[in-house]
């Protein structure tokens, strides 16, 4: 029981850190390449602990991200729910993949999330990019996936959970 409390607080902590990384100010050139940290953490937990983090949690985290970034309510919520759903569908296969192959799937998942938010931004006439640069975060997300995998996995192992 105590282990479960620690585990849940670890999940909450990971989302808090990802949320902070999502809003921390960055230099002008880097802002186009900011990885979708929250999506990466959602994918991690959905693959490894689908009984704790699912589409519902992803949705609520998304609402929180919307509040943090001041974006339209539901934009990130819908995007992260899509991410969670895709990761749920693919999770049995993803667990057998090497980290680099997982990264390529993450590229597609985050890319679809960005595409969905691009569509929604078009639908609601919000400011958006007019070229393909809006997909750049998918590439950086895939590059940072191994880091997330090792960092969160390492923390779980060092805390001797599960």
């Amino acid at each position, binding site marked *: 029981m105590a282990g479960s409390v620690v585990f849940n607080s670890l999940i909450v902590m990971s989302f*808090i850190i990802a*949320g*902070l990384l*999502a*809003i*921390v*100010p*960055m230099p*002008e050139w880097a*802002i*186009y390449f*900011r990885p979708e940290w929250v999506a990466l953490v959602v994918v991690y937990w959905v693959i490894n602990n689908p009984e704790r983090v699912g589409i519902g949690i992803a949705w609520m985290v998304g*609402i*929180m991200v*919307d*509040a*943090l*970034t*001041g*974006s*339209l*309510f*539901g*934009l990130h*919520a*819908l995007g992260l729910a899509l991410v969670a759903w895709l990761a749920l569908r693919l999770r049995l296969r993803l667990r057998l993949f090497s980290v680099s192959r997982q990264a390529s799937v993450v590229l597609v998942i985050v890319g679809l999330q960005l595409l969905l938010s691009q569509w*929604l931004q078009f639908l*609601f*006439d*919000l*400011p*958006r*990019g*007019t*070229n393909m*640069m*809006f997909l750049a975060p998918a590439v950086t997300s895939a590059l940072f996936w191994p880091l997330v995998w090792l960092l969160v996995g390492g923390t779980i192992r060092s805390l001797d959970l599960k």
Partner: protein
Amino acid sequence: MAADKRFGYMEQARQALGLVATPFFWLADTPARVGNSLGEIFVSRTELLDENARLREELMLSRQRLLLAESLTVENNRLLALQDASALFEQEVLTAEIINVSPDPYTRRILINKGGRDGVFEGQAVLEANGLMGQVLQVMPFSSWVLLITDVNHVTPVEVSRNGERALARGGQDGDTELDLEFVIPTQDIEVGDTLISSGMGQVYPKNYPVAEVISVHRSPVQPYATIKARPMAQVGSTRHVMLVLAATVQDVPALADGTEGGADEESTLAAIESAN
């Protein structure tokens, strides 16, 4: 869900979540704040003395200009009173600090550390030492989002300080930091180097604040409008302090006083009226 936001049903939830988000904003700002205070700690005595001298000199110069400006204001108000026009008076300001920048590269917004508790209201004009910066978009209890004039969905009604030619300055596409002047017919007298000041139309911004400087003008015989680019005076990247205009100012365009909120749409209608004349 997303449509809810359109009609403002989510305002309560937004307020509550804004409250929860406050510590996040504070934490995310920490690196910048620590950097700043470190910069303040590791500064040499001579540097401080130099800065002090420079600031003193600046203060003296500003005082001298202020004296001149005061007499001009009085004179101006008297002349305007003669013409039966309601004049622009002095404005009270509230200072605030920028604590975050919107993570979305395609929209230009900043987060400031004053919110509903400090009397910030939606549509309030935000200034910086060099010029107009934007308007308050969303008020949360302890912080608020400010939409900058460089946002693609933001239009600022401006006029050329040299001759009073009016135009609309829209933020650039794809996170560009320059402004595009819209609906300027080729015969209008706008040139490179002209200073654009706020015209006070649309009732959002106070009149006569510097907005931008024209950096390029292209007139083509095949295009109905000239292509004009302007660089905003307000430097978002290099400052942390902004001013919020407190008093709702009296404008001297009573005929257009219907709209309370000067969104982009209303301003484009204004432009349509103008260009038709």
